């Protein structure tokens, strides 16, 4: 905490909101009249704000050196303010003069989630139409997907595909130089850039082959509504939606050869996510869920270039520079304040932020210090891949160690489950009043409890909570259930093999 105080002014007490006078000038050019106040009391004029905003995007990508020249990057567009202004930044970056130009090949994905957000087919068609106008105007190739398509996903989507080490991973500098050399040759030679040519072709192709709402299988819409209907709490619904959305984006990226996905999470959004994750027991995957770069899937890396923009900056940029957005209802639009943990945290943060403008950035910077998960960063070459959560693909955090919080929770869970059947009259038949019962009573708890018991060990602590809030696991898409089955079989096989390995060790105790 002392360190934090030093860094943020050392006054030892959070700064209250300073009032800004009307007569003040832009803090950057010191000439023009300011149009907005960002951070703590910094007033910017329109032109300087624009420069600041655009520069921050390029600096973010440059600093992290995450994207290689010529790499295919999929922009995840929701129509909301942050991802829409991310699209604008990419457009700005690609149209710049060569020295400052972004050099990757963008594509866009939009996922229609109308089915679970209470939109009628007509409303969904209307939203899609608005989105398509934006997508076409971008000139980038794009992919439209419906959330219903998760029912067609292959179970391989849940498997970690190692990053190809032969790639340009070793030298970012070489890759940039090679790209510039190549581009100079092309500019001298006359023929159009193959990259641009391919882009145009792709755009044409996408425009012809757009899935419309008419073609949507109503069976799958019903399946999807049933799936979300089986989830008891809004908190778990939000987590499930996020998981399915990520799988669909990952699938599109893999199928279309994109090696990066750009998500438009703003600093404000990430601060909410960070505190939400903490309270959901997803602390172990915090760095992955909120960091700049997220390589949990291995081959496709998710990056979050908007993570240093506050929601206010984004809203102002979009308003002042005419960035089109499409408002789509969320799972919980207009829901009660305390409907989900996500909402409670959001309200809490915004409430604090109103009086203490550095709240969000302080939370966000705290998250930044947790930059890499030890499980992934410190992995020696040749070491076994960590076991990953079936749903969110983060390294499993559920090794039950003596004295851990998880162990305590599991023990108290077991105890409370054991008491229930004994106390109810129905459970009395086989093991009357006995404190230490086994077998017969645990089976009487609930139908489907067996399937759940098989499922839980494959999940991280946070995803366990989501699954526990579901009344029926059968409505989960097939790809999830079959991958669970496959992992279960593999675990069994491993157990069988283990016996032999142990014997082996017993024979040669001196080795290793």
């Amino acid at each position, binding site marked *: 905490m002392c360190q934090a105080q030093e860094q943020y002014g050392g006054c030892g007490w959070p700064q209250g909101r300073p009032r800004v006078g009307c007569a003040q000038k832009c803090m950057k050019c010191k000439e023009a009249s300011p149009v907005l106040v960002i951070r703590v009391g910094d007033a910017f004029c329109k032109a300087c704000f624009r420069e600041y905003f655009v520069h921050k995007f390029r600096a973010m990508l440059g600093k992290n050196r995450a994207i290689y020249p010529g790499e295919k990057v999929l922009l995840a567009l929701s129509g909301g303010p942050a991802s829409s202004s991310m699209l604008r930044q990419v457009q700005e970056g690609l149209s710049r003069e060569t020295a400052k130009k972004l050099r990757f090949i963008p594509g866009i994905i939009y996922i229609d989630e109308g089915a679970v957000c209470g939109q009628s087919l007509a409303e969904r068609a209307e939203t899609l139409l608005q989105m398509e106008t934006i997508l076409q105007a971008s000139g980038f190739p794009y992919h439209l997907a419906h959330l219903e398509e998760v029912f067609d996903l292959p179970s391989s989507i849940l498997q970690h595909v190692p990053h190809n080490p032969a790639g340009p991973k070793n030298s970012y500098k070489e890759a940039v130089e090679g790209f510039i050399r190549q581009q100079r040759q092309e500019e001298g030679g006359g023929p159009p850039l193959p990259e641009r040519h391919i882009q145009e072709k792709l755009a044409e192709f996408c425009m012809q082959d757009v899935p419309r709402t008419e073609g949507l299988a109503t069976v799958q819409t019903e399946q999807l509504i049933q799936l979300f209907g089986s989830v008891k709490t809004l908190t778990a619904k939000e987590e499930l939606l996020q998981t399915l959305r990520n799988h669909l984006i990952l699938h599109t990226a893999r199928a279309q050869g994109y090696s990066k996905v750009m998500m438009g999470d703003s600093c404000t959004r990430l601060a909410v996510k960070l505190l939400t994750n903490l309270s959901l027991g997803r602390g172990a995957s915090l760095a992955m869920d909120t960091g700049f770069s997220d390589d949990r899937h291995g081959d496709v890396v998710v990056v979050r270039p908007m993570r240093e923009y506050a929601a206010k900056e984004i*809203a102002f940029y979009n*308003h002042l520079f005419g960035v089109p957005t499409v408002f789509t209802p969320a799972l*919980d639009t*207009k829901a009660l304040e305390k409907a989900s943990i996500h909402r409670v945290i*959001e309200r809490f943060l915004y409430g604090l932020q109103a009086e203490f403008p550095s709240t969000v950035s302080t939370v966000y910077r705290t998250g930044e210090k947790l930059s890499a998960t030890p499980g992934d960063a410190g992995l020696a070459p040749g070491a076994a891949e960590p076991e990953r959560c079936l749903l969110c693909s983060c390294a499993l955090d559920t090794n039950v160690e003596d004295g851990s919080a998880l162990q305590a929770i599991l023990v108290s869970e077991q105890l409370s489950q054991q008491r229930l059947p004994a106390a109810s009259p129905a459970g009395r038949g086989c093991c009357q009043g006995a404190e230490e019962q086994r077998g017969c009573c645990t089976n009487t708890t609930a139908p489907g409890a067996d399937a759940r018991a098989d499922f839980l060990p494959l999940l991280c602590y946070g995803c366990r909570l989501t699954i526990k809030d579901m009344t029926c696991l059968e409505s989960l898409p097939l790809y999830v259930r079959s991958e669970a089955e496959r992992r279960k079989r593999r675990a069994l096989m491993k157990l069988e093999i283990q016996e032999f390995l142990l014997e082996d060790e017993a024979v040669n105790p001196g080795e290793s």
Partner: protein
Amino acid sequence: MAAPMSLLVEFGGGAELLFDGIKKHQVTLPCQPEPWDIRNLLKWIKQNLLKERPELFIQGDTVRPGILVLINDADWELMGELDYKLQDQDNVVFISTLHGG
């Protein structure tokens, strides 16, 4: 005595949902003894435009945290916030940043 005043009031970022989904409202404020400021305007909006769930828009005598206010395309923090004295033909924009993006 303030003369009747014509304003363009806009809602965005999802805030329009609380106003029948209508983003732009051309409104005329009636004459009243004291001059119109944003504080009065919010009261007027609550009584005349707001269709449902006022707590999602107004908190106490100001806007709910997370809703931005722009007066003639400038941050209201630069304009005196609730005390800004409205003028004829002013443009006031409310943008919700709650759960967007």
